[in-house]
């Protein structure tokens, strides 16, 4: 892809849409390629804000691992867990083939 300071091209958007698994139409690709540069230009100002000595903040409060006792407790039934599935079979999620070949 292009350099961070060079904005974003239509080919970049095609690549990103592939990574994000969104089958964008030609019109959507054109539209995004035309409006993303202005947004990226705006947000790029953050690069001048901080030097190497400033630590990154991922969460505004301290985050620690949280554990609970390793005991069995009630959870969703298979029926409830599968209730929203587009397709299911024998208490499992039924998905299309995962390999490209037929």
């Amino acid at each position, binding site marked *: 892809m292009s350099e961070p300071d060079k904005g974003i091209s239509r080919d970049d958007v095609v690549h990103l849409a592939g990574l994000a698994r969104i089958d964008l139409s030609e019109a959507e690709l054109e539209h995004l390629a035309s409006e993303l540069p202005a947004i990226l230009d705006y947000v790029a100002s953050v690069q001048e804000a901080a030097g190497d000595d400033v630590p990154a*903040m991922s969460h505004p409060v301290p985050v620690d691992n949280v554990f609970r006792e390793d005991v069995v407790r009630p959870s969703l039934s298979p029926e409830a867990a599968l209730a929203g599935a587009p397709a299911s079979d024998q208490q499992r999620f039924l998905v299309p083939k995962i390999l490209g070949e037929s």
Partner: protein
Amino acid sequence: MTDLTRLTADEIARGLSAREFTSAEVTQANLDRIAAVDGDIHAFLHVDADGALATARDIDDRRGKGEQLSYLAGVPIAVKDVLATEGLPTTCGSKILEGWIPPYDATVTAKIKAAGLPILGKTNMDEFAMGSSTEHSAYGPTRNPWDRTRIPGGSGGGSAAAVAAFEAPLAVGTDTGGSIRQPGALTGTVGVKPTYGGISRYGLVAMASSLDQAGPVTRTVLDAALLHELIAGHDPMDSTSIPEPVPAVVAAARRADVKGLKIGIVTELGGDGFQPGVRARFDDAVELLTSAGAEVVEVSIPSLKYALGAYYLVMPSEASSNLAKFDAMRYGVRVPPAGVDDPSAEQVMSSSRDAGFGDEVKRRIILGTYALSSGYYDAYYGSAQKVRTILARDFAAAFADVDVLVSPTSPTTAYPLGEKLDDPLAMYLGDVATIPANLVGIPGLSLPVGLADEDDLPVGLQFLAPQKADDRLYNAAAALERLLEEKWGGTLLAKAPQLEEVR
């Protein structure tokens, strides 16, 4: 007889315990109001009349038997459609979740149900809470009760409009960059984003996990405090939940005394780019606070100029990652690609996400995917995280000198539907005053402070306080609310135009 829809939640709670009316009557009055005005306002995506009335009758029954009930038991409530509600549709305003009925309750929902508040329905929102106008809902926009040609703000325009239009006394919203506070400002209602970690995010469909926070949407500061106290508290199901007692927000709202309080006006959140009527009402409100004994100073936070840029990197980055779960495999719509025989899971995933997501969601996923890409991560997401550190330090320094900070909530009043729909950056700029609180995890409250002279539309003032000092917001806002209502001789919403009721 009193119009029960006009009562505050506190008045309803007191009326219920004094047996002046029943929860079934209050709930029915709100359902009737929804039926009469929501065709126009479109605050609700789903109304659960049967469920709400069943809860109301159960509470009336239990009250009749002398059972000890929660203070807000029997007070109806609306819930933003981003919180999981077992047995009720939860769409997040997206086609990709059309028809999805969660098999579990969000912790906030569970607390509301346990306390016996009838849930009137689910409120409209920008798709996955991405937007500042509620125009990005896949199910059509919500209209502002003050002027139905204008936006109600967003993303929680549905919750704010429902409360402003007297369709519900209480609502729950969520706020990632202002989605509770900005609609509050634009509809003349009260909206609070609590301290990050103050209210459980379990069952809140995540947009940006390090920014999201649920909170109250109400018509008065005391009502907001009552709802805050009900839905807040430590939850083992949310690893970012604060394991400490909830700040004494209700006591603070009842105290309502700013004598000796040190208030800082944030220099960078005002001035240029802020509508004259917004600035005028803000200045009037600050003068009232001064007259009531508050000590007002000006505070500069220079790093705020980087806040919006940091927000529009952190938020899409986290959103692109969170929304990867909508893969058409376990829940949500599955739309196979047209003209492909025996498509693969990846092809089905890509076509489903194309069909299920709207423009703004796609825009943010692509932006976030870019910011997180190898070779770009440090320049974008990494730099944005550093800005959060600098901002947090600057806010900490500011709060060493003052108790609360104030600014206008939104630079403008409600703008016409469609005005900024084709200019995403222009819409993003409207979040300038609200996003800093999310980036640094501090609480914020928006209070209606009057109408702008140029358009007679509501203006909001935002209070900010240090983390875990949510009570300071309620104390200061309740004091200002009382001063304003004394000046107006009533509430601001009493000045809102009457909505035509369809019977």
